[in-house]
């Protein structure tokens, strides 16, 4: 192993520790990753920093200068922030998203911006204006989406950790398909200020990391109320680094609605094995019901497009981003949006516009909100009996590039197990729990609002017992 390879094989938390101990120079660490990110063959990055920051991290910076890959839809001052869209091609914002600024202050300099589905709409990263991202486990397959670039970068060791956003599964599903850890926090736990919005009532930023400990460390410095985001909330307790070796007394609920039909056999087997392992570790496991969960996708595909249709109205060519030339205002609007947005984004804008239209609002958006309330109630009553709800993260392993692009509905079904938690605003984490045909499988744990500390601990105990090895993807990506 070269010296650089050794640095790359350090986990993020270990690397931060090594920097603080004086064993590793922050610039050295940054350059090791920068070199790999710049040589990215997965199309995971849309922009990579030219060099390590001139000023290293403060001596007491808790994250020790360990560099961070950031999904393209986080605004970063002076750095392209394009949300995977042609309509924002070349857009460099005049300000930085609160969570990115917060992390930079804690000692994670920006390594690069990562590819994604356009405006976070997609489950395969094939909807990017900057081309699809390849899965480091099999380059003919998708990394999942929408945060596919961040997931692939961390899995391939092009970044020690990364930021993503999750609206209906956009952190958890690519984490599962790339064999890494991804956490979607409680809605409101992390500021949304500076996140290019997809669906405001669902969007939430979260960490990608190789393991649960790194995810917890990054998350620790992400949470907190932000006066610039009215929907953000103070996290009730500090985020702890997880430890423990058993799950004694932990009650797991397995919802029949999310673990039955439609789950691929390899994924189902891995799920059953992990359930058995949890029982061996002392957890009690019982079947349960989330009666409204089967309607979650329908509700989600009304609420999210409705909000998106409004959130994306600002891309009109007047002030920034792409503008098509035309002689009058209406033609300029129409051409700019026709040429600037991709097919999936247009599909959702049309869906959302329709759902909000006068005369249809009650039947679509109004009813979807009622379903959303019911789903949240389902979880609330489940959490009276269980500490966590567990499901497979994705019903399938990574699929082939192009396999589902012609069939939006089958693509949407990929989020079947992750969307209910998004609608309920509760935290959920995906950890790798094995391989199926040589491709990673993800295991999802969801808990009540602000239960992240308990969730991270349970995920950590399982992770230790599972002993998943993701190093293959890091080796495979090099050169």
């Amino acid at each position: 192993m070269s010296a650089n390879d050794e640095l790359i094989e350090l986990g993020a938390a270990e690397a931060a520790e090594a920097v603080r101990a004086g064993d590793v120079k922050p610039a050295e660490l940054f350059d090791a990753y920068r070199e790999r990110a710049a040589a990215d063959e997965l199309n995971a990055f849309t922009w990579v920093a030219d060099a390590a920051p001139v000023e290293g991290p403060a001596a007491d910076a808790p994250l020790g200068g360990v560099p961070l890959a950031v999904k393209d839809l986080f605004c970063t001052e002076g750095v392209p922030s394009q949300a995977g869209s042609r309509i924002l091609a070349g857009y460099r914002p005049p300000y930085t998203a609160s969570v990115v600024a917060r992390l930079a202050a804690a000692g994670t300099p920006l390594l690069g911006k990562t590819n994604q589905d356009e405006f976070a709409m997609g489950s395969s990263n094939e909807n990017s204006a900057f081309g699809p991202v390849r899965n480091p486990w099999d380059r003919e397959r998708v990394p999942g989406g929408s945060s596919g670039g961040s997931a692939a970068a961390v899995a391939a060791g092009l970044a020690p950790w990364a930021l993503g956003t999750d609206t209906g599964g956009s952190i958890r599903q690519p984490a599962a398909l790339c064999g890494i850890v991804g956490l979607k926090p409680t809605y409101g736990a992390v500021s949304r200020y500076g996140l290019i919005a997809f669906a405001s009532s669902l969007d939430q930023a979260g960490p990608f990391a190789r393991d649960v400990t790194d995810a917890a460390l990054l998350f620790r410095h992400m949470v907190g109320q932000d006066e610039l985001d009215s929907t953000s909330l103070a996290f009730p307790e500090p985020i702890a680094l997880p430890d423990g070796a058993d799950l004694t007394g932990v009650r797991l609920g397995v919802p029949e609605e999310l673990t039955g039909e439609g789950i691929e056999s390899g994924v189902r087997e891995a799920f059953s094995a992990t359930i058995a392992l949890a029982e061996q570790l002392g957890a009690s496991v019982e079947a349960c019901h989330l009666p409204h969960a089967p309607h979650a996708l329908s509700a989600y595909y009304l609420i999210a497009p409705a909000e998106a249709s409004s959130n994306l109205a600002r891309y009109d060519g007047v002030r920034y981003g792409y503008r098509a030339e035309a002689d009058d205002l209406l033609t300029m609007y129409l051409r700019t949006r026709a040429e600037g947005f991709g097919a999936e984004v247009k599909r959702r804008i049309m869906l959302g516009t329709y759902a909000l239209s006068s005369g249809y609002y009650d039947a679509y958006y109004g009813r979807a909100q009622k379903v959303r309330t019911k789903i949240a109630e389902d979880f609330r009553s489940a959490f009276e009996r269980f500490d966590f709800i567990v499901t497979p993260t994705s019903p399938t392993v990574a699929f082939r590039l192009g396999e589902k692009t012609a069939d939006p509905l089958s693509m949407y079904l990929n989020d079947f197990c992750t969307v209910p938690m998004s609608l309920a605003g509760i935290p959920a984490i995906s950890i790798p729990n094995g391989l199926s045909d040589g491709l990673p499988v993800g295991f999802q744990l969801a808990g009540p609002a602000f239960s992240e500390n308990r969730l991270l601990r349970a995920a950590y105990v399982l992770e230790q017992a599972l002993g998943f090895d993701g190093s293959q993807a890091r080796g495979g990506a090099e050169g």
Partner: protein
Amino acid sequence: MSASAYEPVIGLEIHVQLKTRTKMFCGCELSFGDPPNTHTCPVCLGLPGALPVLNAKAVHYALMVGMALDCELTPRSIFHRKNYFYPDSPKGYQISQYDIPICGAGRLGDVRIHRAHLEEDAAKLIHLGGTGRIHGASESVVDFNRGGTPLVEIVTEPDVRSAAQAREWLTLLRTTLRQLGVSDVNMDEGSLRCDANVSIRPAGSDVLGTKTELKNMNSFRYLERGVEAEIARQIAIVEAGGEVIQETLHYDPTTRSAGGAPGAISSLRSKEEAHDYRYFPEPDLVPLVLEERMLEAARAELPELPAQRAERYEQELGLSADTARLFAFRSELGDYYELAAAAAGTSAEPQVLANWISGELVARIGDSDPAASKVTPGAIAQLVVLLRGKQIQPGAAKQVLDALVADGGEPEAIVAALGLGAIGGADELAEVVARALESDPAAVEKLRAGNMKAIGPIVGFVMRETKGRADGGEVNRLVREQLGL
């Protein structure tokens, strides 16, 4: 049918820019007249990723407005997005309140309030080339300084029945808002903007006719004229057997209509082109929950409002209803009156003092603020006290007031300097009356024949001779005495 066979039904929608330090949803300072686009930030420019944060002061002001308009206050109101594409709307939507506004039903004077809600103002489009309106402009530019200014939109019930009433009521509203100190309420600068929904119906009917929305009336005069013109237009349509169509209309006071009336009305858009604003709850803001301390703070800052003031003038001071309303609605007159009344103490009748201010003084200074005139409240009070003590006569008092308006000073000194003191002894006056009778035998003859109207020229003669210093009643008595009537 004649015009009087129709009853106009008018409702008003008033946009009030709040005088907060910063904008509705960001920290940019409000400005008027500053260079374009110098008060902007990611939030009010609608940059990707920016989020709104509600201005607490705007809520405070809205609560004061709601209380002043006697509105029901909503314990938990919410914001909606009103979606439309236009370059003055950088997000593609306006954040406003929709079905759950902060202020519900209320009343001001004789007009019921339907609701009042908070929203953000649009940016300002400037059309270059041509007339300044969009038609004929060569290009348009956007100034985002105004974008995001806090607005309260007040919507009345259709309780107004004439253009004059619309104007009078808007005056009351403006005074109320000015007293509250929540807005500059300047129609020229757009801090007070009024649209009118106008319809007509046969007098006595209680069915509402098709309404039109009249925009761009940026003065009280134009509001009255615009509404008048629209009522006339609708009556003409109906009289000709046509039907009024629902549309948004633009009133242009600088032109004349086909009929020659001042101000042309032109159509902006009809109902067929009406926007579907696709309102839905703003997910970037949390519900606005009123806490007791917010209500207390708003209540504590409420000044005496015009309606209360008018009532106090009527009840406590015994002023006539008209005078009480005038002083209450034109608060500068009320303020001046109160200072003068304090100076006069119990030595002047409240209504007489009021009449001298609302009648004689206003006739001399017009719409300007009496506090800015050379007539101090103390001076006008002294004048009325002199009158009451019969030390001067009304005619002389008017001359004293002329002098006060022109040069200021003290009434007593002016009376002395100009020799305007009332004629003291009856002998002196009797002599003047005798001369008057002598000079007009024709009048004397009529008087003797019992035609008392003929006394006018005699009294006029005496007043001229005495420069208004004579007591009219005394002159009358002396005429009768000298003619043995």
